[in-house]
């Protein structure tokens, strides 16, 4: 029992912050995000013997959090004390500071993301925001890496199309593809 608790504590310390970040990105309510953390680790506590070792615990937990989030029903738990700093971080997440000169692009990128299917969005967010590798995403989604590669490829293409639709167009620079705002398409040329 001691080993079980120690193992869980180690996992909780290592990953609860990341699971909170995962939930915060996908909910609009700090309490809901905390509920997802609570429910995810409730499952982890019950299945602690099944949690893979080392870094493999991470995708396992994301897989659980993903299911918890999908089934989450609001209003179950209200934290009695949401301390000021944590509340501020959770509430401020959508106004996360950005450089002013590309804040407009940010809106366009978010709009492009919103235009994708839930499946594409989920995949790209796991990749870009949660920083999971393709093999970890395969673990989270319960699929093969080959399938993840296929789906990522298609999702990226669709995202690329949505970006271009919004005037963020790709240009080739120094051998790297990059997206640049095609201002000329939307803004008059300077006199």
């Amino acid at each position, binding site marked *: 029992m001691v080993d079980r608790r120690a193992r869980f504590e180690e996992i909780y310390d290592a990953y609860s912050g990341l699971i909170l970040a995962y939930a915060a990105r996908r909910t609009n309510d700090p309490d809901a995000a905390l509920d997802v953390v609570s429910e995810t680790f409730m*499952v982890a506590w019950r299945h602690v013997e099944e949690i893979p070792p080392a870094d493999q615990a991470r995708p396992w937990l994301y897989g659980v959090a993903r299911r918890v989030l999908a089934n989450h029903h609001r209003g179950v738990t209200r934290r009695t004390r949401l301390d000021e700093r944590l509340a501020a971080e959770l509430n401020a997440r959508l106004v996360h500071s950005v450089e002013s000169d590309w804040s407009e692009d*940010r809106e366009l990128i978010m709009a492009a993301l919103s235009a994708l299917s839930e499946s594409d969005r989920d995949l790209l967010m796991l990749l870009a925001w949660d920083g999971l590798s393709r093999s970890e995403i395969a673990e989270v989604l319960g699929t093969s890496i*080959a399938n993840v590669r296929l789906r990522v490829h298609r999702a990226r293409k669709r995202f690329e199309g949505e970006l271009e639709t919004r005037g963020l167009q790709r240009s080739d620079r120094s051998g790297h593809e990059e997206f640049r705002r095609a201002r000329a398409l939307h803004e008059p040329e300077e006199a």
Partner: protein
Amino acid sequence: MPNSSSPVDELSSVDPVDVARLTAAWSESDVKQEIFTEVTGAPTDALTTSGARRTGRWSLPRVAAAVAVTAAALVVVQGVFSFGDPAFAVRELQNGLIEVKASDDFRNGDALAAELRAYGIDVEMVTTPASPSSVGRVAVFAPGGGEYIPDGLTFGQEGTADVFNWTIDPDAFTETLTIQMHVAAQEGEPYVIAEGVFELGEALGGLHCALGQPVRAEDVQPYLAELGITPIWLVISPTEDPTVIYEEQVSDTPAGQVMWGHSIDATTVELSVLPDGTNLSADHQPRLSDVPCSADQAEAWSR
């Protein structure tokens, strides 16, 4: 605009969460300890049986462990049943549970779904065009996805024919269960599920065994031409983030190593090639097949 190298980088640049700040606040928050105490204070037995939703982990079938599963699949069984006459039986047991016994791959899914609906159970049957080696697999999705058996649903022994013997508690099971069947694609229809193209049963199954590894793109090209398969060549390049690569389509057969590939449809394959002189991190190793090469596989490609 941030200097970025792919659409994914674009997305990374607008992450709404500052992870470093959030995790720092979390580490120092009383709520972190509050949740820890709440979770670990609950007995594990009680967690198993209490609450509105009982969850149970559904491990992958051992018999069919080699199969790839679709997203959020609960269970996948391959090759357990033939594609003979579809057959199933649904009946209500004395204790009120609904028993389903099926002896096919649920291709007659609409009929089964209709019968279950008569018992007040909402089951959705979905067919998914799949590449050849995936055809015949069945995936069961819980509400919301995930690897958890929804309340009120039990399966037989995983990895055996019994997995299609279910009991459903109509009082407890109130959500839609989705059963996805992987079926052969129609002519010209793209695959929704595709295994690696070098996996056994796929268009280039085992070719890497005959060619020897690493597999060169220019060595694969003649086989594609002979098979009447159109390649889509993607050239891989690393990015500043070692976990992220960028793939760009090119028109000519690139000089380099084929890292992975899959079929788009019956006559089109997409192959990703690492150009000569380019290195990737350990996150991106060649992945051609899960099955070790054998002499038989190589021999099958001898001309």
